[in-house]
């Protein structure tokens, strides 16, 4: 097999990003239509009272989506969007591994480890 170049790797990553972004936009858009049809007036954002409990965890959001809750659907799209940079880093680890570039497999795996740690530490 010919060498897997940086350019090919970046094009693959670019395609993945386009799919991820389109999918999340589609979910947010669908949730948005549901939300605007049921909304009566613009909510009060001047005072902070934090979002509902079920919108703050992945499990809660998925439960909400099963109930066709508009806010949960938007939140699912946002979660998909948040996942795109994470998947991008994972694809870099894989891409550098295919190039047998040990240095950059290490570098991108380290970034992935820090990223996972802060995502998990934040969710707790």
């Amino acid at each position, binding site marked *: 097999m010919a060498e897997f170049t*940086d350019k090919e790797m*970046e094009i693959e990553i*670019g*395609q993945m*990003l*386009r799919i*991820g*972004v389109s999918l*999340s*936009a589609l979910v*947010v*858009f669908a*949730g*948005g239509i549901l*939300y*605007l049809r049921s*909304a*009566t*007036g*613009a*909510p009060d*954002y*001047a*005072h*902070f009272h*934090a*979002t*509902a409990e079920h*919108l*703050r*965890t992945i499990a809660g959001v998925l439960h909400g989506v099963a109930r066709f809750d*508009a806010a949960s659907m*938007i939140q699912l*799209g*946002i*979660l998909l*969007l*948040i*996942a*795109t*940079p*994470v998947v*991008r*880093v994972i694809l*870099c680890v894989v891409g550098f591994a295919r190039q047998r570039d040990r*240095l*950059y497999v290490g*570098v*991108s795996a*380290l*970034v992935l480890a*820090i*990223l996972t*740690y*802060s*995502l998990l*530490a*934040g*969710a*707790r």
Partner: protein
Amino acid sequence: MSASSFSALVFGTSVVAGILGALTGLGGGVVIVPVLALLFKVDIRYAIGASLVSVIATSSGAAAAYVREGLSNVRIGMFLEVATTLGALLGAYLTAKVSSHWIAIIFGVVLLYSAYSSYRQKGDHPTAAVPNALAEKLQLRGSYPTDAGETTYSAQHVPLGFGIMFGAGTLSGLLGIGSGAVKVLAMDQAMKLPFKVSTTTSNFMIGVTAAASAGIYLARGYVDPGLAMPVMLGVLGGSMIGSRILVKVKVATLKTVFVVVIVALGAEMIFNGMTGRI
């Protein structure tokens, strides 16, 4: 105001935020936070949650074009991301220990100074002729398309750039916003990378850094769906437009836009620090 007209207004603002965010490599938050907080009177915590969504949307929305054109550099981005994410962890740890008002004010002054020094140097700085030994070892080099054809570049002052990136990460952990400016400045001014490579690589990095803190903000209830929906859709659209403009526009024009935006960001930081918003 009805929910539809509120969403439409926020959507319009977000399109502009996405264009500017993709052009400058700073992400949509630069526009989103002040507009939501000052014009729409949105609480700063909701504004920061929306800003986080907008930064990831800008980063992922513009990335496809930057990758295709060969502008962003994945190795340089990934290498520097180690410093930024570690810095962000330190910043999050420090939030409880230091006064963020003063940090915001100092950061604002630094931005105004950087705007001044960027402004003095009109076009791109000359590409370094001598490859830097450390940069070669770490493969922090590449080539990108210019009017004069494919041009090669190699990073300079790698340890300094890495150090500034660590600082940028700490700032983003502490303040939640604004670290994109430091990333562009570190690559452009310290590492002497071409300006378009700096902004597009920063565009890659801000998405990863923002994703790292997304868990915290989501769990604290800062990300409100009613607000995030128009912001995300608007910024995505804007960033796709912005990325197409960046590919064609002259470096001098791009730098002018960048300087104007960081002057505004610097003033915003000083204002927020003084009024105790941050």
